[in-house]
């Protein structure tokens, strides 16, 4: 297998997540959207692109056989080798935003770039060949930032991060701030596929996948503890649920004795807080987690949260989501699924169908094929 394909693309647990956690909700939303327009999808798909071809195979995304293209998909990628390949397999030249997602989304003007508020002014400024490389990069990042922002809203935003939701300091909140931006941008009217028409989404899906292990930064731990405390102060129902249902009376003891449960119970609150801020009603549709072992044989956990956001009618969503995250029974632990077990075989069979579709496209475009799982 070419070394470049992401290591876990054919992992049965990962595919279980795709199939049972992402797909049903995407299909359900698609049926509601399809009367008015095409389904719009944003992904961090990497070159295996299983999620894209799964949605295409299931008819959630439109595959246009005239131009061999999966329509209305946008992705972000910073690898210069993978970027053209993913674009090509999608079949739409401007499907990608080149760069690191957080860097593009969280772009902030400095005094220099602030002078160029529009795409036209940026292009004009970049026409100055004498512009030093740092300034040039700043303006180019701003340009991609504006393009990315302009591409919103989407029906399904799939943020399958490879890393932590809270990366190591100094900037533990950069992912959270990225999600913050997305929830903000989702409120805007976007450009539709028919020239002149504007798109607004009233509900959409967001999936966030991240890892958790013992390297969880203390700063993040402290932040989440403070959020729990604040919740307990302002929401008696939350406090009651925590004490009665989860039997947590000592927050520090909870953190010390059940770090993993503490993380899984609390980080979704970050997203629900943001939702509240942008007046989205958040509902957790699926919450799965599973174990992995890294190359140094150290265990870590993958957590995936799938939420539906609806334009707010009342503000009950925040508390419901926060309590839902506390509820262990609402979390689905995906235990090991052996490839040779009936369940594993079933998942691999499904995955094989997706790989086949993906490889047909890769063959047409003369790109490396994924091996059959």
């Amino acid at each position: 297998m070419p070394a470049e394909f992401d290591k876990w693309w054919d992992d049965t647990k990962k595919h279980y997540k795709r199939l049972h956690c992402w797909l049903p909700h995407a299909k359900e939303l698609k049926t509601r959207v399809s009367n008015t327009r095409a389904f719009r999808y944003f992904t961090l798909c990497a070159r295996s692109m299983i999620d894209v071809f799964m949605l295409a195979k299931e008819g959630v995304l439109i595959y246009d056989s005239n131009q061999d293209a999966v329509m209305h998909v946008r992705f972000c990628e910073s690898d210069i080798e993978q970027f053209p390949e993913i674009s090509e397999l999608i079949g739409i030249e401007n499907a990608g935003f080149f760069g690191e997602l957080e860097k593009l989304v969280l772009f902030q003007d400095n005094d220099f770039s602030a002078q160029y508020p529009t795409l036209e002014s940026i292009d004009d400024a970049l026409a100055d060949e004498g512009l030093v490389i740092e300034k040039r990069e700043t303006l180019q990042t701003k340009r991609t930032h504006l393009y990315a922002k302009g591409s919103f809203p989407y029906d399904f935003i799939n943020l399958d991060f490879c890393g932590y939701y809270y990366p190591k300091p100094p900037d533990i909140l950069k992912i959270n701030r990225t999600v913050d931006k997305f929830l903000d941008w989702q409120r805007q009217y976007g450009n539709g596929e028919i020239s002149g028409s504007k798109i607004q989404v009233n509900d959409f899906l967001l999936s966030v996948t991240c890892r958790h292990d013992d390297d969880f930064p203390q700063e993040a731990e402290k932040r989440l503890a403070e959020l729990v405390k604040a919740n307990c102060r302002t929401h008696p129902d939350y406090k009651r649920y925590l004490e009665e249902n989860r039997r947590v009376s000592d927050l520090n003891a909870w953190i010390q004795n059940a770090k993993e449960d503490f993380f899984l119970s609390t980080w979704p609150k970050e997203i629900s807080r943001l939702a509240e801020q942008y007046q989205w009603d958040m509902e957790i549709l699926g919450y799965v987690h599973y174990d992995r072992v890294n190359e140094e044989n150290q265990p870590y956990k993958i957590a995936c949260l799938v939420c539906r956001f609806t334009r707010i009618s009342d503000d009950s969503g925040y508390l419901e989501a926060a309590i839902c995250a506390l509820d262990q029974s609402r979390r689905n632990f995906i235990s090991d699924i052996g490839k040779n077990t009936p369940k594993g075989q079933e998942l691999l069979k499904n995955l094989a169908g997706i790989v086949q579709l993906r490889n047909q496209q890769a063959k047409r475009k003369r790109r490396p094929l994924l091996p059959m799982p």
Partner: protein
Amino acid sequence: MPLNDWKPIKLSAKVFGHISQGLYRTPAGAIKELISNSFDADASVTKIHTGFPYFDTFSCEDDGRGMSLDEFQRLMEHGIGTSYKRTLDNAITEIYNRPIIGRLGIGILSLAQICTQFEIISHHKESKTAFKATIQFPPYTKQDMDKILQKKEEAEKEELLVQGGQYRLEKINYQPEKAGVKIFTKFLRESFRKRMKNLSNYGNKISTEPYKTFEKFMNAVYGIKQKTRSLNLLSDYDQLIFGLALAAPLPYFEGGQGNITLQMPFLRDYKKILTNYKFDVEVDNLTLARPIYLPSNREGRTAQVCRLGKPSAKEFILRDGPHKEKTKVMQYPINMEGADEQFSLYELSYFNKNVSGRPLEFSGYLFQQTGRLYPRDIQGILVRLRNVAIGSYDADIMTYPYAEGPRYSMVSLELFVQSGFEDALNIDRDSFNGLDPHYIRTRTFVHSLLHEVIFPETWTEEKARNKQRREKLASERESSFIKALSKTTKEAYARIEHTETKQRGAASRSDLPPIHFDRVAKTIEIDKAHPSIQKILRRKKHAQLAEQILIAFERANREPNEARRREVFYKLLGDIFSGM
């Protein structure tokens, strides 16, 4: 006593900037270099992505042999332009036996035309080495350089004046499945982006969608309706695709309206050679092919209704200064179903083992049709060296010295150079040195062929055809006039006869009117030499019109009263002018 020993002459960065950014006349001319590099590296495909329609990234990848770390370092450290890729004129590649195009190793420099910085990743099959490098060109244009120099401290000036850019190199692990070269940049020059982003004339304004097939692109190019029918009427992006498709060593496009030249045995063989190179170029998911439709489709006259006739030899004398040479071409008449027009196709070949001490050999074809070829960009001559187009079609046909009027626009030539011409190529590999003996000999061949064979034949044919057309038109006008005259006067006439008055037995011409209406014979006789009308009918161009007005006058004059005379005359005048 000499003042010093030999010392290297330094190249100013300003000059470097000038050469690299102003080397190629079009973006296609620059990007073509990358395609040539891939071709030379035995790649099966070159994939180019322009980031249409934003054009904020550009990538070019191939699956060829790759560039070795050593080769890259040598180019960077010993100087761009020191490639040893091709030392022999007839060098070929190892896998597909392709004639090697590159010689100087300046392909990388071509990127300076479109970007200020790029990254290159190469996995080299033979040496099993791989590297990743970032190359930064001097960021200045000719004008900017002076501005920058003014801002810089004196100490830095010296450095700027010798630096041709900078690079950063990283050795990476070789992976056989990644063999080839990948180039990527997000640092595109705004001058390039601006041109590409102006899509107001994209796709002949038929669609704003990316081309789904190459045929759709061809439809846009060959569907230009404006009078000049030039590619300049399309977007720069369209011109880029056309330029690359034309320049690259690719087989001809065989769909759509078709190309009659491909029926020629010589081009069928040439097509096989191109196909055996097994080389594809994709630009933004579009697989390119040589974008030629011949003939140009006028009133359904496409290659599908053309048939090549039997060839015959045409001889002519090639005069190159004191050198005189009898040479020949093969002419294939092209018959067209349902039309009396005849186009021609000529097979050209030339070999001389000693043109200024070196052999010169080329072959090619010349297509000639009645009526202009379009788009205008396929009129004239295109020279291919090792199957790569040098520049674009030269509508001036190597500065053809004679005035031939519109006949220029009716010929399209492609010349394939088999040997020679190496020193005729300018450094941009996009144009020729007009003083090179091989260039001069080829030009002489083409000019002699055009002047002695093609244009005289076209001229004679055109004259005959025009005469035929004029006669047909005159006959149609006459019958329409007679019909109108008969209807208005209620007298049946069948034809106009040109006769002399004396044949009607008169003593003197001036005794009788110049026009005689014979209702029995159903003829109108007109004496063109009659003194009263001779002057009126003298100008051939207006003779028929004048004649009809005279007939109308004479016939109206025969009416009994003034009112009726006026009525008939005006009515007939109306018929004459409405039938024009």
